[in-house]
């Protein structure tokens, strides 16, 4: 079963533990400048929105890569960059509509979320549950459930409930 990162911005406090966990896992350094997940703040910090690669099934980055350095991990569903093959041409960074694959000046290669091989560190580091790792087919389950709970409450409050 493939899983997906599920992000709930309403729960994000913008602590950036995810960015540190990501850079530590991939670079061995606490360094948000090298994180594959970024948190964006709006309205003096009122809202914070974590954003990262959603692992497109037909990934623009993969299709654009001229040297086939980006391949799909069949177990996790992640599009992964093979560093040994990547030539740093950056065509993938142009192709990606979401901006979630980026060039890394210190290595001359591109970096993107690879789901940490199926055990994403950002989700483990998140203290509020704003980032979770769930069944890829059921990223909407929680939201559906919330509406169902609401409907249930209305039904039981009504006549004959």
């Amino acid at each position: 079963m493939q899983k997906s990162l599920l992000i709930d911005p309403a729960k994000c406090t913008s602590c950036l533990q995810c960015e540190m966990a990501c850079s530590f896992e991939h670079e061995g350094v606490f360094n948000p400048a090298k994180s594959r997940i970024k948190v964006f703040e709006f309205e003096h910090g009122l809202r914070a929105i974590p954003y990262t690669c959603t692992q497109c099934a037909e990934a623009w980055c993969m299709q654009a890569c001229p040297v086939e350095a980006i391949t799909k991990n069949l177990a996790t569903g992640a599009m992964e960059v093979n560093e040994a093959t990547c030539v740093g041409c950056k065509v993938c960074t142009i192709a990606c509509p979401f901006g979630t694959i980026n060039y890394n000046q210190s290595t001359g290669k591109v970096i993107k979320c690879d789901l940490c091989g199926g055990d994403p560190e950002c989700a483990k580091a998140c203290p509020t549950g704003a980032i979770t790792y769930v069944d890829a087919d059921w990223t909407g389950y929680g939201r559906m459930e919330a509406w169902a709970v609401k409907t249930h409450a209305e039904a039981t409050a009504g006549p004959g409930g």
Partner: protein
Amino acid sequence: MGWQKKVLRVDLTKGSCEPEPLNMDWAAAYLGERGLATKYLWENMDPKADPMGPDNVLIFATGPLTGTMASTSGRYAVITKGPLTGAIACSNSGGKFGAELKFAGYDLLIIQGVASEPVYLHIVDEQVEIVPAGELWGKTVWETEEWIKAKHQNPLLKVASIGVAGERGVRFACIINDLHRAAGRSGVGAVMGSKNLKAVAVYGTIGVTVDDPKRFMAVVRETHALLAENDGRKELTELGTNAMIDSMQAFGSLPTRNFHEVQFEGVSKINPEAMEKVTPGGHRNLLANKACFGCTIACGRIAHIDETHFTIVNRPKYRHASGGLEYETAYAFGPLLGIDDIDALTFASFLMNEHGMDPISFGGTLASAMELYEMGVITDKDTDGVALKFGNAEALTVMAEKTGKYEGFGQVLGLGSKLLCEKYGHPELSMTVKGQEFAGYDSRALQGMGLGFATSNRGACHLKHDVFTQDMEDQTGQGKAKPCKDSQDLISMVDSTGLCLFTMAAWGVEEFQQQIDAACAGDWTVERLLEIGERVWNLERLFNLRAGLTAADDSLPKRLLEVPAPSGTAKGQVAELDIMLPEYYQLRGWTPEGVPSSETLDRLQLQG
């Protein structure tokens, strides 16, 4: 590791920016942040220097755990000589700026001299430039952050800056980073202004490493879990620091109307419950809670003001969310001024952040001015026609803005309450220690806290000691000297790590020790860390003694020593400083004159 082992020294007189290796002997003896910067300050300036003159040195300091996955790792400290007090200033802030400075490769940023024209610093890793800031001079903190990010086309820059209050030398001007986090106390923003330095903007891509990554991550998992499960932590997350207002009200230790009273009838209108309440018009003050860098507590409040409120009804630019009420702001604008209007308090709090001022000292100063006004010592002629009466919400917001913009009577308020009360011939009305206004804890009900206020090296301050538990159990001065001293030493150490004091809800000294020991090379025992705390405290004391302060400055205002508490659990009591202080000096290994003895200096390797 933990440290970047690099200091950035900027001489604004010469216009030079030079990196230099961190003195690792000093790091071993003073750890980082507060402690290490105190050592650098001691070695780099004469404590007698004019705090607003070219010889004062301004240090931004991170700790070895700043910018790591340890919870609350966003802290940095600003260490300098404070213009409000003439003593060492030690102001600690969160937000994201401190971690960014560390990520750029620096443990400390040392600023000396004075620029010949307004400038700001732009730092991207090794690239450091002093940039003319003529266009920025006169702008608010909020405008400055936006302007600098736009100018460098870099939204990832983190900015610490001052407003007009800091430019014009308001003695309690602070440094604001990330729009609403403050290195708040003792006038560190005025020092920055005196150097013609408007802002420091930094972006770092180097990152932080630790000595033993595997062990560090294992320890961090445990310390995160301890915080997650802790009830004190949960209260901070859910209610914010303003939860304190209900405790202080119930106990009778909530300074009200310039300390005439210790309980405030309007608390229910400005407490956490009031922040969450929806008005008949559908407005709710509190919108969300947010975290500083690396913090798994997230005590910060994000709030907004009712659009129909008189403060902003014609000012749409303030119809947005920003940093909401913390306890100290709620206390200093609420009970201390007798005001129960939550929107006025929130607006004044926004103004403090926008213009870069310390709300505790502003509130304390306005409280003394209100007392002078009600006594008839100052009149409408002095106050630009504003009735400075206790309870007048408009007086609070108008004066906050005037002080922030350095206009009219705001210039007088900008002196701080000590000089203001002296100016009008009533020094006894100034509720200060060493010239700094009190945080919201009355020393007649909380005796050990009172001892801490009297002996704090930066003047009245609630963040350098913690005797709450003992004070709540017993309301005399007996036995308070030891917990006061011990907590001062412990907190001095915690302030030197790069982490936040609020973690102490769940962590003891062992948790700090384990994180430091895994992150930093060398053998870090609990004993060694506590000794560092004591060393830091004593070095701050030495700085103050050399600056000219004496035991006479370890005192409390007469109102606390002679006028009994009018109500609450300590009704009829005064602060028993006379019992506590001699015992405290003795426990510290200081002479009866409050000077560290030769043996104490030897024991702490502070001789010479």
